[in-house]
């Protein structure tokens, strides 16, 4: 095996363009994927037409809320371009300068203040289905946040009014009498009066009023809590069932390294076997000089070794910029080694099927790229049946298992690294057997 290995290393050394391409391309793809995962989408440009008169406030239970506060909430998630008219906004969208426009009508204050009608904003957009979906979800999310903010303002104003009703004082409502007694003070006052009241119809009537006042005071104090619940009926409490929380940027590192490992290893292993065929050397080698098993093992090990070195260097290099736990470096290398072997086995299986290097490379590429994307599809993002198919496909190829092993090694994510390494071992054996079957006939 060592002479074959030495020969292949010599050929690789003399194929500098191929080696450079084999390393630069997957690393570039991996970094792009990593960046795409770790960075959220940039804020979409949205044209804003605010037709509401400047400085207007909404009066809510005697409390004034500035419309601009509401608008700021609405626009915080977008890159706002202010325009004066609806026509200008529409032309911005048509010209592609903004992916959508939001028109705030001049009657928004009146509608909000009325308390009985909904305020409306108009959204103008065009573009393809993906853009429309992005705009809708962004605007919906912004409106939800703005509505929540408004609802909190209303809740605060209402709570203050309830406090005044309970404790007494001066309500800043038109027509409200000055120095109100407050509902909570009425029951003790009535009790004092009742103590001096003789039995009779008047006392009975007063006792009924006292009972009601007690009940009303207690329930009005509860209404503040009810208002708080109504303003945000569902709150989120997160519970992580397995492993520990994986930061998005370190997960992106894991994805980028796994993609590089896969591409380099699969392409090199597939190309290595196909290269023997292309040079017509396979039949010569297999007539007693080298066994099929040794040949496949040599190609897989060479590809695994090269990709392991590149991936380890990449992980170490990225580690300089992203906070990684270096005490787990042994586990990183273990995950990379097992992943590389599984990818090597997959590569030689592809190489055994292809008759030339170009076909092997194309096949390896066409198989690897979708596998990587399928493995990244999160649960719940597609229909259940489709996700089951994706899971099954991802299970029988090494990318997902490698990703899980490396995620467990780098981030301590679940499932544990042992499960993933066992999975990778099984896949190595499976693809090794398939490669051996594929190489049954030398030519």
């Amino acid at each position, binding site marked *: 095996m060592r002479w074959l290995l030495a020969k292949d290393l010599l050929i690789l050394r003399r194929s500098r363009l191929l080696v450079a391409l084999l390393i630069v391309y997957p690393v570039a793809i991996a970094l792009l994927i990593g960046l795409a995962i770790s960075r959220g989408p940039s804020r979409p440009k949205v044209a804003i037409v605010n037709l509401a008169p400047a400085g207007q406030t909404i009066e809510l239970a005697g409390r004034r809320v500035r419309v601009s506060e509401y608008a700021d909430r609405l626009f915080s998630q977008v890159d706002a371009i202010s325009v004066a008219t609806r026509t200008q906004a529409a032309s911005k969208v048509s010209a592609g300068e903004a992916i959508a426009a939001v028109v705030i009508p001049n009657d928004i204050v009146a509608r909000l203040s009325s308390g009985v009608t909904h305020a409306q904003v108009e959204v103008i957009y065009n573009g393809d289905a993906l853009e429309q979906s992005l705009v809708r979800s962004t605007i919906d999310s912004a409106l939800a946040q703005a509505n929540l903010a408004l609802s909190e303002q209303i809740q605060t104003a209402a709570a203050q009014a309830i406090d005044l009703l309970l404790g007494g004082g001066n309500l800043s409502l038109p027509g409200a009498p000055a120095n109100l007694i407050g509902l909570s003070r009425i029951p003790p006052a009535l009790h004092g009066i009742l103590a001096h009241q003789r039995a009779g119809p008047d006392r009975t009537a007063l006792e009924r009023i006292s009972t009601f006042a007690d009940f009303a005071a207690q329930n009005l104090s509860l209404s503040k809590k009810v208002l708080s619940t109504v303003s945000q009926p569902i709150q989120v409490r997160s519970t992580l069932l397995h492993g520990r929380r994986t930061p998005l940027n370190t997960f992106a590192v894991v994805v980028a390294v796994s993609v590089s490992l896969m591409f380099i290893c699969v392409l090199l292993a597939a190309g290595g076997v196909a290269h023997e065929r292309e040079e*017509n050397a396979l039949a010569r080698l297999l007539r007693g000089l080298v066994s099929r098993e040794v040949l496949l093992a040599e190609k897989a090990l060479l590809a695994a070794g090269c990709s392991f070195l590149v991936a380890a260097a990449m992980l170490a290099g990225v580690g300089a910029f992203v906070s990684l736990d270096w005490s787990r470096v042994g586990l990183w290398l273990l995950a990379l080694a097992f992943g590389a072997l599984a990818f090597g086995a997959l590569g030689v299986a592809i190489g055994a099927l292809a008759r030339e290097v170009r076909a092997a490379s194309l096949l390896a590429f066409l198989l690897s790229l979708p596998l990587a994307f399928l493995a990244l599809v999160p649960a719940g993002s597609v229909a259940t049946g489709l996700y089951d198919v994706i899971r099954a496909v991802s299970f029988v190829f090494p990318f997902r298992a490698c990703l899980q092993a490396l995620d467990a090694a780098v981030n301590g994510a679940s499932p544990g690294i042992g499960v993933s390494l066992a999975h990778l071992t099984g896949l190595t054996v499976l693809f090794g057997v398939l490669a051996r079957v594929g190489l049954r006939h030398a030519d």
Partner: protein
Amino acid sequence: MSSGGVSEPVLSLRGVTMRYGEREALRAVSFAVGAGELVAVVGPNGAGKTTLLSILAGVQRPSAGTVSALAGDGRVGWAPQQVALYSKLSVQENLELFARLERVADPHAVVTRMLDQTGLSERAHERLGHLSGGNRQRVNVALGLLADPPVLILDEPSSALDPGQRARLWSFVGGLVERGTSVVFSTHDVSEVERYARRAIVLADGELLFDGPPRGLIDAADLEGDLEDAFVGFLAKRGH
């Protein structure tokens, strides 16, 4: 038709049949090759020449029948039709690699000897991809001789060569035969058979139709003309 007995057989086939599914590429082919013989296997396209030679070389196993290499350690040298070498390696590197894989006792000495024999000593460090087709074929043949086998199988060795390169190749092969190596080669070129081979085996549709000296084919065809006319006439007479 058979050449009859062969003195000191070094290679023997008995009832070799090769099937690919329903198709029979070879049908019960039997013959033996003697020491120092230069045997041509000739036949039209699809006759089964390459299949026969790959079975002789041990690249394929026959569906039925036996192949016995009777001399030395049973090794058979083989030079396939298409040059089977690494174009990114030099002549010397290719020879050294296969000498080590063949586990020859002294790879350096063997490589030096083969470079001398092929006349490629001065081009030993040139990459194979930079050599002419003729020189590549010489290295291809040299690889088959690294382990000093008593029998060498050459599959259409001159098909991609110009006349000068052919002459040099056959001179080299003639030298091998003179030193006692048995050579079995396949060809389309009947004139090559007439000029270099001492014995011709005619295959058609997987069937051995003739085995004897090339001039014997003219008698078998019972026609006026040269060997090529006789070959065509013989095949026509036998329904091919």
